[in-house]
């Protein structure tokens, strides 16, 4: 049992013993360290001004990922290197990323700039050769700038990524990894007392035991949602159990027929496995949050928090995924759709927690499509998200349709009537399509809110099913959609 957290800052190991469970990394940097280069823009992980890079040792080197410090809990950085904007320059010499930002006129008011520098720094560290514009846009999708219109920032990133990677972080990567391995251990972390604590158990059994003892504790994986309970809802969360240290829980495994996803596996980690199942899943994952959110947030958390607008549950439901839970020693498995009872209510007992997901891969006779409709393409929450899996026999008849939507009800939900209407029909039978569209209207009674009206949601749900059928029947996606074209994605992957 360890009663401190340890992380690396500017080459020095920092050990902190009095970690309040709710302290954010941003507050630690700004208020405790007095390192004010990192800014707070929104306090909810949506503007990126607070972006810092978190380095973790992998295979003898350090891998840097950007995170939003405003919603990252301090305790979560145990075992990592924390790099903030002040740490890049050497004496008076700017880091190449910083120099490129100056040269290309990438800052105006300068308030978002530290966040952009850190996102581009993470991209620079995570790649070796030149990087394309799409990848850069993706790397900075979680950073908002209100002054420049982005063009000079993108050019700075293009320019610096076209240069060799020879900064001090690259030169020190093996040494830094060595230090990170040195401070890593297998102890459970518990800071505080029975009334107020930050805990990060190192094994699944320790997690189960701790949660059984404190079923009122808050389980935190990436804190991309729980962080907002603290910074925005101002809830008091005196007991926090972070699952990021649980050995093996962050793993993803391809068994051949299915993908096993540990409850603590981040979106970033899962993304390539999903992209391999279908390009649409890759694009869906790319559009969940931002790089920062995907580096912290987990698929397990997205499923467990029961939001009606989470993007992974409809896709997982359409794929026929199931989930594993555990309470004390007792495991339980159920289809993902059965987890959702109604808005804010899930099929989860007190003291029970999600341990993982099982996602079946597509068979050759299955066609998958999913679409996310938002006001802004990148880093936005869905007005409607639709996922479709058609199992089609050799004659072109739909043997099974699995259709699930987000944003259409209080929970992610299957469109069972529409599924039935398509059953047995030819994939090209537009009369059957029409029946499915009618049935879809019966399946849902969507709500009006600030993202969209009920009628827009109903219309768009119809449109997405229409698109899926049109594409499944053979129309190229370049003629049916504006983004995430499958031909382009397949091409890029080659």
């Amino acid at each position, binding site marked *: 049992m360890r009663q401190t957290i340890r992380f690396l800052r500017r080459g020095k190991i920092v050990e902190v013993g009095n970690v309040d469970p709710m302290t954010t990394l941003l507050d630690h940097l*700004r208020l405790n360290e007095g390192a*004010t*280069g*990192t*800014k*707070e*823009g*929104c*306090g*909810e992980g*949506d503007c990126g*001004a607070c972006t810092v890079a978190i380095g973790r040792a992998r295979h003898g080197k350090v891998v840097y990922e950007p995170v939003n410090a405003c919603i990252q809990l301090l305790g979560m950085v145990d075992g990592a290197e924390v790099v*903030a*904007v002040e740490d890049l320059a050497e004496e008076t010499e*700017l880091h190449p990323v*910083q120099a490129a930002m*100056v040269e290309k*006129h*990438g*800052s*105006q*008011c*300068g308030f*978002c700039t530290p966040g952009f*520098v850190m996102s581009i720094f993470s991209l620079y560290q995570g790649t070796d050769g030149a990087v394309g*514009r*799409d990848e*850069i*846009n*993706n790397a*900075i999708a979680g*950073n*908002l700038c*209100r*002054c*420049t*219109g*982005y*063009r*000079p*920032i993108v050019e700075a990133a293009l320019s610096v990524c076209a240069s060799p990677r020879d900064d001090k972080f690259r030169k020190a990567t093996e040494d830094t990894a060595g230090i990170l391995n040195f401070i890593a251990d297998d102890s459970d972390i518990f800071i505080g007392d029975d009334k107020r604590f930050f805990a990060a158990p190192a094994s699944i059994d320790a997690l189960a035991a701790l949660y059984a003892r404190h079923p009122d504790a808050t389980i935190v994986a990436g804190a991309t949602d729980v962080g907002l309970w603290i910074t*925005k809802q101002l809830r008091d969360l005196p007991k926090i159990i972070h699952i990021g240290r649980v050995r093996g829980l962050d793993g993803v495994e391809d068994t051949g027929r299915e993908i096993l996803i540990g409850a603590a596996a981040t979106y970033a980690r899962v993304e390539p496995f999903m992209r391999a199942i279908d390009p649409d899943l890759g694009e869906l994952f790319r559009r969940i949050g931002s790089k920062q959110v995907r580096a912290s947030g987990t698929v397990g958390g997205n499923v467990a928090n029961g939001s009606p607008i989470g993007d992974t549950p409809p896709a997982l439901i359409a794929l026929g995924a199931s989930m594993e839970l555990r309470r004390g020693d007792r495991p339980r498995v159920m289809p993902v759709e059965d987890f959702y009872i109604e808005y804010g209510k899930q099929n989860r007992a007190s003291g029970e927690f999600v341990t993982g997901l099982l996602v079946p891969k597509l068979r050759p006779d299955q066609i998958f499509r999913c679409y996310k*409709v*938002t*006001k*802004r*393409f*990148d*880093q936005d929450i869905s007005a409607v998200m639709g996922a479709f899996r058609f199992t089609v026999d050799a004659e072109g008849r739909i043997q099974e349709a699995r259709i699930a939507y987000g944003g259409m009800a209080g929970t992610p939900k299957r469109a069972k009537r529409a599924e039935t209407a398509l059953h047995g029909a030819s994939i090209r039978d537009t009369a059957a399509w029409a029946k499915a569209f009618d049935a879809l209207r019966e399946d849902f009674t969507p709500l009006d809110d*600030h*993202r*969209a009206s009920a009628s*827009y949601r109903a219309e*768009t749900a119809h*449109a*997405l099913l229409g698109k899926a059928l049109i594409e499944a029947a053979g129309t190229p996606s370049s003629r*049916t*959609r*504006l*983004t995430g074209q499958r031909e382009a994605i397949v091409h890029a992957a080659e």
Partner: protein
Amino acid sequence: MPATDDLAVVRKPLPHDSAPRHVTGSAAYIDDIREPAGTLHLAPGYAPIARGRITGLDLEAVRAFPGVVAVLTADDIPGANDVSPKLIGDDPALAVDEVRFYGQVVFVVVANTRDIARRAAKKAKFTTVAEPPVIDLADAVDTVLPEYSFGRGDIEGALAAAPLKLEASFRIGGQEHFYLEGQIAMAVPGEAGEMFVYSSTQHPSEVQHLVAHALHVPSSAVTVEIRRMGGGFGGKESQASQWAVLAALAAWKTGRPCKMRLDRDDDMIMTGKRHDFRVDYRVGASPEGLLEVVDVALNARCGHSEDLSMGVVDRTMFHSDNSYFYPSCRVLTRRLRTNTVSNTAFRGFGGPQGMTFAERMMDHVAYTLGKDPLEIRKANFYQGDRDHTPYGMKVEDNLLQPLVAQLEASSDYWARREAITAFNAESRILKKGLALTPVKFGISFTLMMLNQAGALLHLYRDGSLNLNHGGTEMGQGLFLKVAQVVAEEFGVDMGKVAITATRTDKVPNTSPTAASSGTDLNAMAALNACNIIKDRLYTFIEEKWQVRRNQVSFRDNQVIIGNHVMSLAELANAAYVERVQLSAAGFYKTPKIAWNRDKAEGRPFFYFAYGASCSEVTIDTMTGEMKVDRVDVLHDVGKSLNPAIDIGQIEGGFVQGMGWLTTEELVWDKQGRLRTHAPSTYKIPAASDIPEHFRVELFQSEGPREDTIFKSKAVGEPPLMLGISVFCAITNAIASLKPGVMPALDAPATPEAILRAVRGMTAA
């Protein structure tokens, strides 16, 4: 002023003076200034209704919250409880009894930490009597100011006679500023009632005056400083004051430094936005599409108080013509009161809404006649003797024809028009649109007294210069541009000119940094200060070396005096020894302008800035999603002081304008609560919304006819309205669905709004 073809510093694309500090995190914003020991932190408490009365307020639990030092209400204000820019009393710092919008601040918590203050503020118990609030513009009847109109001709007669008559209504949404640095102020009490206030404000003098009024002390006791803002865009022109006043009040009450930094959600709920409008118009035109008469009613949501709605909505009127000649016209405005936050300045200051109307009307005429909108636009441009605006000012510096012709060619407009027509003929789900729209924007404050500026310049004995002026830096590069002018005048490197924070005790009675005027006014004032000091130096040189002033030049970090060459330091020191004053206060007021609002006549603008943009978009007719494929911009900044800074302003302005008209949507619920109060729900453009082909060029010219600073033109606001081409391109894509029909598209063109307009076409 030296000849413009022999410049060492001016016209150079120098990087922002703070750029190296921006990228390393060492550029300090107010929240980064090291807090004096004992600093306390404030959080606002607000009433949970949009309209009604507070009959009881129980703050017991707030006061009892551990770490709370004080809880302040209106009773604690020793002076005026008023943060309205005109001091007319309709904007209390802390509301008393009456609540006029959801989010109106009623009390502030002062605590040891910001987190404690925020958590404690939630503990207040309100007893209220709520009344039904006026939230929707359509329900608004009461106004914050009387109806106002101008125009000319016999409207009804001209409409009756016009061969083509069109009539429509549409809505233009508001816009949240979303400066990345939220509202913040820190007040440090001094001795004898002095108060030093750091305020993230575009208008330090107004903050100074309002703090003085609230504390009931003379303005001379209050000093306001701002080194830089993390963005302003108009949102910190009048609405930074409240937080500075509250911080100063708390500092006065507790005797300790006090800081108030709004949480992003509170900032979005509690501060005003761009005015949204309902526009009702009737237009009469010839069969060829030449306008004969325009009758427009511009209905603005002003929110619960007047704030800057007089000037903002006047500017909507001044730009309701954009670039077009209206033979007869009536421009009428209604400034409607609603139970929502008071709307305020936002880059363009009402102008964008007026121009959006003008461009929409052009589209309406074009689509009805089955013509290309660009042809209709060009035909209606100000030209020849068709050069009088609806407010009587003559357009003397017209660049519309050459500028638009150049962009029409460089953007390959007509070839792309054909390609798009062909694409739309064979594409069923996706449709493309193309639009080229102009901008003509009037430069000057329409409130005449604001067209003045001051600067303070010191030359030290070592030849270094210390520059100060009344303008504020919010990222637009103002400090750099003014410093470039000073460096040019003294012939020194930029490093010799120290750029310093704006402070009300250095340059008093300043105007807000607004109306795109920052450089025009402050650089002129700084130039005046340079000339005063140089004039004294010339006199000194004439006496000491018997060299005439026309044989003296300041360049290459040297002073050349006839045959002598010396450094500026040597000259400065020699002048000091001879007791020459090396410090000067410069001043400037804009010439030629005059505006009589009652008679609606005069010349409100010193000159116009011009620009044009051409945008291509694709829409998805099944979902309403939209993507911008290509943008070409040509913009007139006269002869640029700094082309890199100017291009940055143009690009950023375009993208901000595009966001306003596409993804940025403000939604209030029926109870008057803003539902889009954070970046998770309010979507400004992200990097991937910018097309790869986004080409911005500066229009090359000899500069304006008027005597502006180094023949440059203002650039802050005009480019925002270039974003209107995206909205018109979307309209164009929808119009392809049914020739002869004008799409009924409201702004912002969200996917939902686009889909509604698409459905309207199939139903039409």
